[in-house]
């Protein structure tokens, strides 16, 4: 680990310089909101943002991704034989990603990179990416990341963590990947380690003071799946949900996708597309039978997966990094913080 000081006057030049090696991604303002997007030439990451509407997960796990292709032209020798579509896994860097989004990538990794299966699309993209995080000096009202094992200056899952100090950035370089990126930018003013650590600590404490919302997760583990599943509160919690799926699309830790085929003339392409457990189609069988036919069942599934099944299965905390996006975006104000606290404090009546 080392610390580098970057004068903001040098920032634009350094970032442009890194394009020789990296494709760049970062926050971009679109109307009044921010999105994590590819940074076109001469576009700098918009570092003075609060939070992006969508998380950074699409950089590694695009909303629609081409996986396989085959020709249907029977005059070709290899007709109907599927092949992998070559992916662009040259180095890329995401600049200004929020720390909880980087932490979320580590949770996604549990699903896409296992002992039994390695998802080459996700893993190759992940390995090609350098994550340059930006600490959150003033967390917004929806941020509850300190109660989900991360926080505004958490460096877990990051290669570089930047702290914005008005006229300069202080960069905490955490990995070789991070050092390579900082090097490619030509940022090389080494800062004193002790002072930098102390400064990061002050910034973290200041930022954490701004986080007003917290959740309780300590008792989730000891409850049984069955008692939570059968708890009486689900109908009430699900009542206002309109099944729009927004909560799952904006979430950095939701990983479900559907696989579909498309045909253009004689060329078939197999795609994967984000799916959502909030839609009745997600589980409907060919017979018409649907094991999660009711809204209550689907809302329960989402929260049980995030707050109980994931916790039990991986023992790595809950499947939520506290970014608050679903809370902010839900059109009917369903709030995972409230649901989590209800689940955590639920005691079955004898």
């Amino acid at each position: 680990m080392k610390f580098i000081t970057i004068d903001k006057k040098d920032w634009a030049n350094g970032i442009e310089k890194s394009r020789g090696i990296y494709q760049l991604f970062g926050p971009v303002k679109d109307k009044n909101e921010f999105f994590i997007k590819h940074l076109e030439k001469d576009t700098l990451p918009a570092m003075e943002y609060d939070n992006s509407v969508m998380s950074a997960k699409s950089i590694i796990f695009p909303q629609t991704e081409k996986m396989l292709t085959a020709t249907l032209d029977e005059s070709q020798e290899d007709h109907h034989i599927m092949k992998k579509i070559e992916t662009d896994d040259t180095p890329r860097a995401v600049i200004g990603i929020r720390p909880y989004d980087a932490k979320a990538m580590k949770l996604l990794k549990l699903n896409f990179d296992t002992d039994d299966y390695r998802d080459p699309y996700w893993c190759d993209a992940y390995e090609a990416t350098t994550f340059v995080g930006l600490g959150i000096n003033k967390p917004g009202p929806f941020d509850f990341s300190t109660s989900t094992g991360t926080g505004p200056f958490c460096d877990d899952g990051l290669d570089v963590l930047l702290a914005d100090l008005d006229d300069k950035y202080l960069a905490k370089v955490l990995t070789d990947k991070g050092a390579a990126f900082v090097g490619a930018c030509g940022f090389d003013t080494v800062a004193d380690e002790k002072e930098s650590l102390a400064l990061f600590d002050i910034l973290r404490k200041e930022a954490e003071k701004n986080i007003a919302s917290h959740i309780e997760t300590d008792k989730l583990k000891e409850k049984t799946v069955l008692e939570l599943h059968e708890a009486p509160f689900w109908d009430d919690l699900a009542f206002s949900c309109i099944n729009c799926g927004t909560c799952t699309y904006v979430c950095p830790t939701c990983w479900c996708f559907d696989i579909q085929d498309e045909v253009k003339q004689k060329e078939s392409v197999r795609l994967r597309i984000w799916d959502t457990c909030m839609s009745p189609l997600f589980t409907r069988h060919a017979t018409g039978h649907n094991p999660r036919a009711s809204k209550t069942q689907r809302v329960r599934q989402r929260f049980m997966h995030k707050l109980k099944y994931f916790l039990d299965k991986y023992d790595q905390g809950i499947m939520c990094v506290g970014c608050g996006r679903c809370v902010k975006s839900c059109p009917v104000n369903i709030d995972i913080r409230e649901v989590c606290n209800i689940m955590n404090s639920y005691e079955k009546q004898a």
Partner: protein
Amino acid sequence: MENPYLPYPVRIDDIEIATEDKSLKTFKFVFLNKEDEEKFSYQAGQFAELSIPGVGEIPIGIASSPVEKGFVKFTVFRTGVVTSHLHNMKVGDIMGIRGPLGNWYPWDKLENKNVVIIGGGFAFTTLRSSIIYMLDPANRNKFKNIDVVYGARSPGMLLYREELFGKNERISICILRLMGPMIQIGNTIQALFPLLLNRMPQRPMKTHMPLSVALRL
């Protein structure tokens, strides 16, 4: 590690109509590349994704058994987009299979035990796989009695009837009316049936299973 989404290319080698009403067909596939057959090493009870480029892929239980070499078999009910397309395909057509996926029956735990196999309708596919596996000379003496209870909507809807129940002279077949008087074969089934009957729901069931076969293999 390989790309788990990439299907192995296969050729349809045979298509058999599996039930009287022609709603189910059994497809026999051979791998275009011999080494893929080895990579597709499966256990009785697992499923695979049948993949038709340009149409889609569907999860289907593996009906062939690990002891049957040189091909894999699947029995498919015609219901929607992919299954209807598959039913219209011909011998010689090329498509894909990926897997195997899912769990299997705990064969080691079943050793030296009486085994009762209970299945209904066309969920019997992976049970065919299991029966062929257990009846294989290399495996048969690992298990004691093997009793099979198999129900379908009508006798014509029983899968693999000829193959599993017809030709085996050691076994007797009887069609049982579960709600009516019944003939019981074998101690295990005798012990089991009252148990099963007690648990039968009193209201009409969604899946009707008026006819059953019980036999000892």
